[in-house]
């Protein structure tokens, strides 16, 4: 999909590479994401070990030096994200990855990068929280990713893959978005996406190289450049914020991504992303066998949230069930989009637990029996 395309039902980008069944490999999510970044032309990776994303760092530790590219294991997530800031300020294509507690440490630099418009792709392989939590899969960093990590008025694109193949494609998309809009971009995966193995098409995509008129290369024959977020005069900062907000509005208009399954005749819709969407897909198929008209709505871009599509859908269904690996975070955005047009129920598990198809199906049956109410 190109940036000019309207809100897309399918976020996958057509690739020129032909599918060759022999060019498929069984890959772990963390490793596939790492290799996708390498194939996308990632110049530098900075990281710090944390479960459940450590294989991503290890893959980069092996592959980047053999390609003559940059790999640094930093002293902390603070170190890693600030190395990324420095490298990206020179126009390099940079990847950083971590898991929830590490992402919290990176929040400071996320704010600086949003303010100074520095393009970096950041992968969060979410684990259970709060605090040190657990190392099991979770989606409890939705608020953090979507509503803001550091301080200040800003948004960053957040993309959530529901399969390892999709994660591979979204890595390339993330670099494109980061460079097109001069912004950090989040890939919000979870422990399952990071640890599971799936067949992956080895048709990786390499976004075109850009020349940046802001990148720091040394003021050789041109005026000096400064990459900064400081605008001490209130008038200047407000002007900067207006420009940022205009950019966010453009992203919100052009970069909405979602996918739907069996929505045409659906009376009840399950809304889920990432690993929860994989459970939901099973549930939809089993519900259909029972004669329940259930469909799946799967946001791929969590910001910008596919609110228009969801609003449209909510006007013609009896009810919505949101399923998350959290105590209920995305459900708030669903309710904002639906604006009371239909009942919105929620089913979630936390702490590294994954909702079972049985329990989601039970919630669906109740919803169907009560005309959409829980």
């Amino acid at each position, binding site marked *: 999909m190109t940036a000019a395309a309207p809100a897309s039902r399918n976020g996958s980008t057509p690739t020129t590479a032909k599918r060759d069944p022999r060019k498929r490999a069984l890959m772990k999510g963390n490793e596939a994401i790492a290799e996708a970044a390498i194939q996308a032309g990632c*110049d*530098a990776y*900075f990281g710090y070990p944390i479960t459940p994303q450590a294989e991503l760092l290890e893959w980069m530790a092996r592959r980047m030096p053999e390609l003559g590219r*940059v790999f*640094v294991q*930093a*002293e*902390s997530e*603070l*170190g*890693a994200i*600030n*190395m*990324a*800031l*420095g*490298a*990206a*300020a*020179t126009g*390099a294509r*940079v990847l950083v990855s971590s898991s929830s507690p590490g992402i919290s440490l990176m929040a*400071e*630099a996320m704010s*600086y990068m949003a303010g*100074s418009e520095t393009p970096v792709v950041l992968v969060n392989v979410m684990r259970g929280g709060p605090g040190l939590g657990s190392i099991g899969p979770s989606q409890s960093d939705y608020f953090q990713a979507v509503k803001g990590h550091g301080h200040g008025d800003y948004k960053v694109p957040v993309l959530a893959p529901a399969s390892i193949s999709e994660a591979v494609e979204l890595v390339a998309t993330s670099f494109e978005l980061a460079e097109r809009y001069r912004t950090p971009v989040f890939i919000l995966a979870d422990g399952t996406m990071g640890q599971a193995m799936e067949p992956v098409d080895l048709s990786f995509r390499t976004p075109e190289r850009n020349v940046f008129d802001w990148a*720091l*290369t*040394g*003021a*050789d*024959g041109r*005026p*000096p*450049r*400064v*990459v*900064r*977020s*400081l605008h001490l005069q209130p008038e200047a900062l407000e002007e900067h914020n207006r420009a940022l907000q205009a950019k966010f509005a453009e992203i919100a208009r052009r970069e909405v991504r979602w996918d739907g399954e069996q929505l045409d005749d659906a009376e009840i819709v399950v809304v889920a992303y990432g690993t929860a969407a994989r459970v939901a897909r099973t549930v939809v198929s089993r519900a259909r066998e029972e004669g329940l008209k259930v469909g799946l709505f799967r946001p791929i871009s969590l910001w910008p949230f596919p609110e228009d599509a969801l609003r449209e859908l909510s006007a013609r269904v009896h009810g919505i069930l949101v399923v998350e690996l959290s105590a209920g975070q995305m459900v708030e955005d669903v309710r904002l989009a639906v604006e009371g047009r239909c009942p919105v129920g929620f089913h979630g598990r936390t702490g590294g637990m994954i909702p079972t198809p049985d329990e989601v199906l039970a919630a669906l049956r109740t919803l169907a029996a009560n005309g959409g109410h829980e």
Partner: protein
Amino acid sequence: MTVIEAPRPPERVIFQRPELLTDVSSHYCPGCGHGIIHRLIAELLEELDLGARTIAVAPVGCSVFAYEYLAIDWVEAPHGRAPAVATGIRRVRPDAFVLTYQGDGDLAAIGTAEIVHAAARGEPISGIFVNNGIYGMTGGQMAPTTLLGQRTTSSPTGRESGLAGFPIQITEMLALLPGVAYAARGSVADPSHIGKTKAMIKRAFGAQLNGEGFALVEVLSNCPVGWNMTAPESMAHLATVSETYPLGVLVDRARGVVPSVTPAGEHRGKEA
């Protein structure tokens, strides 16, 4: 009558503003040492013809606006993170000349992890560390470098070791790391010290150019407003400051100068 004019000697420039130093009024308080240190950097970048390939990292603190005064490429780092930001630049731009400029709150408090590990990795970066023993920009609070007994807005009765610990001699600590090619401490107290400091910074730049490793020059500077002194008093006070922070080259591995002692304790200053 014929008037014969004596031939005029050719004009010779004996003093001028370095081109890399922008022609603007600075925001620094009257008498502040930052201006002197900015000038030294500008002079050296010109002398070594480095301006066109320098990428510098600005800190948070009084010198946050360094990018207004030195006409080179700059990126602004979050508070304390300049050495990590510089690492990222250095790794992807091996041909660049990478410079960090940090104050003592930035480098010796909030940024201790970043400075220690950039030094331990031996990143070929030249760090300028301006130590004025105080948080100037936020209004003169105690820093880890504040002298014992020194009154600040957050140590109103004077820094007391039982409550606030001891001044941190971080350059001595860093000098022990094998990745540190060069570490020295100078001062802006008077023209003689300024000249020596310039030579130290030149050597630190050379360490990067030669790929020797990490280099740091700590520069003892003044803060007349934060110290509640006149500018001349604050310059004279630097002699007292250098009792806690002795001046000189701490390590210069290429020239065989290596630290012979463990990190400076509270007696280091008295013995020196």
